[in-house]
């Protein structure tokens, strides 16, 4: 899996070595994301996957409603903008009709684990041969920092101002653990986007998730634990520390299911 380094390593017309550049699958549109947000990182990783597996000509991506609602502006391949939570159903419609296309959804935790939980679980249960790139930042970012089903106990949000109370709103939903019981799932992994090392791990997991679909294994999902400094009320640095110290204790990273070699 080294084709992504295809151009880095080559030389520019000026004779300079190219060591880093934007994936071809990404547009020139500047991101609208807040400082310290990792949607940009995750988008880039998606772009890298499309380049690496040479999927530009046959990819159909499905965008969520949430902070990544404009994702279609940042990529160069075909996309469908779904309504809130329905991306797995939309992706199912595309993939069932065009099984040779690479079809993925990109969804946040409000979209995937709150309003869209039914679509998520049923797409997974059917073993729908799609790839889900899931961003879990434990909060509704775009609408102004409301509590998500993934918010930690005690987490202060604009709708849990004294901190999330489990007696009132229950415990955080752990999507990977929840989906682990479903036989249709081919790949499940969780990783915090909190360091270069973890980002490399995320890239590895995403590769596995893409391969699952290309090899017809079934439903694959990568959950990226992401910072939301603005809505968490932290500096970007503190938000990263918060992920490594608090978030991973509730949402342990790792591969939950990997049927690539089955």
């Amino acid at each position, binding site marked *: 899996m080294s084709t992504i380094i295809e151009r880095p390593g080559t030389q520019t017309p000026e004779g300079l070595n190219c060591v880093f550049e934007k994936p071809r699958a990404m547009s020139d549109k500047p991101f609208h994301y807040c400082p310290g947000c990792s949607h940009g990182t995750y988008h880039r990783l998606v772009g890298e996957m499309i380049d690496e597996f040479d999927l530009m000509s046959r990819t159909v991506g499905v965008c969520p409603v949430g902070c990544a609602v404009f994702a279609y502006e940042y990529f160069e391949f075909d996309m469908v903008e779904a309504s809130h939570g329905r991306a797995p159903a*939309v992706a199912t419609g595309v993939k069932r009709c065009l099984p040779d296309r690479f079809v993925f959804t990109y969804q946040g935790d409000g979209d995937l684990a709150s309003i869209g939980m*039914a*679509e998520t679980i049923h797409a997974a249960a059917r073993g729908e041969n799609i790839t889900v790139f899931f961003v879990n930042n434990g909060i509704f970012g775009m609408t102004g920092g409301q509590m998500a089903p993934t918010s930690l106990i005690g987490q202060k949000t604009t709708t849990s101002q004294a901190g999330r109370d489990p007696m009132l709103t229950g415990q955080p939903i752990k999507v990977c653990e929840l989906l682990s019981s479903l036989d249709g799932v081919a790949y499940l992994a969780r990783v915090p986007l909190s360091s270069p090392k973890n980002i490399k791990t995320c890239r590895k997991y995403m590769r596995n998730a893409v391969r699952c679909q290309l090899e017809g294994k079934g439903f694959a999902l990568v959950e990226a634990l992401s910072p939301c400094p603005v809505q968490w009320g932290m500096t970007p640095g503190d938000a990263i520390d918060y992920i490594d110290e608090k978030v991973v204790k509730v949402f342990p990273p790792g591969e939950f299911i990997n049927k690539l070699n089955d």
Partner: protein
Amino acid sequence: MQAKRRLVKGNEAIALGAVAGGCDAFFGYPITPQNEVPEILSSEMPRHGRVFLQAESEVASINMVYGAAAAGLRAMTSSSSPGISLMMEGMSYIAGAELPCLVVNVMRGGPGLGSIAASQADYFQAVKGGGHGDYRCIVLAPWNVEEMYAFPGIAFDMADRYRNPAMILADGVLGQMMEPACIPSEPPAASHPEKPWAANGRNGRSHKNVANSLVIDPHELRDHNRKLQAKYQQMQAECKWDTRLADDAEIIVVAYGITARIAFSACKLARKRGIKAGLFRPITLYPFPAKPLLETAANAKSLLVVELSSGQMVEDVRLTINGKQPVAFYGEMGGVIPSPAEVCERIVEAAQ
């Protein structure tokens, strides 16, 4: 291709008509009284190499339709009133993203869980938009089993032509009744127009395609809405209607779907009693055949609208007639079906 005359159930006709009309993909969820549609398609679609999938809900069904339609396929779903309510969000997105698809509503009694008996109480929802935002669906109302078979293809063609969702508005009687119909044993080859806008993978295309209803800039969204409205205006030329015994009619009875069948019988009964009654049947409920109705009713003394509702289409008839003649209304609700004799009495009353 031999079309043999045989007894066919309305829902069966819809299903076979969908196959004949070139439906590539069906997504649906069980609900009475339309269950024969997915049941038949669950075997017919794979038999023709097409997609059938039972979704986990009506919400998922319409969003699978959205995905398939965005990818350029002829996609449809079928449901009944409560299920159609659940699809309204998706319909709004599909209309906003200007995608063609077909939704069948075999109407039952409401509101709420209502009943499983026939009703026409979803007229407003079907023809006025139904979901949020300024949009309209093309709405076709069959009145017999042969039209149940023919209309899916017509609806797909219109939907493709305007890149707009189309609906077939039937009811529990039409869905459940059997009558003789000529249906070819094998479907003809349906036309599939080019869809250069489809989000189906670039495959050498110089630009990306995005299926989307998000237009964040108010001026751009206004322009998008103006474009939609212009499209709806353009559709008016495609309105369809039917008239029976209307040429010399003193009273025009306006009814659609199964009610039009009853009303037609009632017109014949009224004529036996010396009242010149005629039928005007809108076939497209949207675009509503306003001009043809005005022309048909030009020499009539009055009109009577008959519906299985508290009075919904009557509003469009009154808007059309605009006070030129009295427009009476007779409606039954909750699944009660009036007899031709009962409708005839109302014709007699309205004619006085």
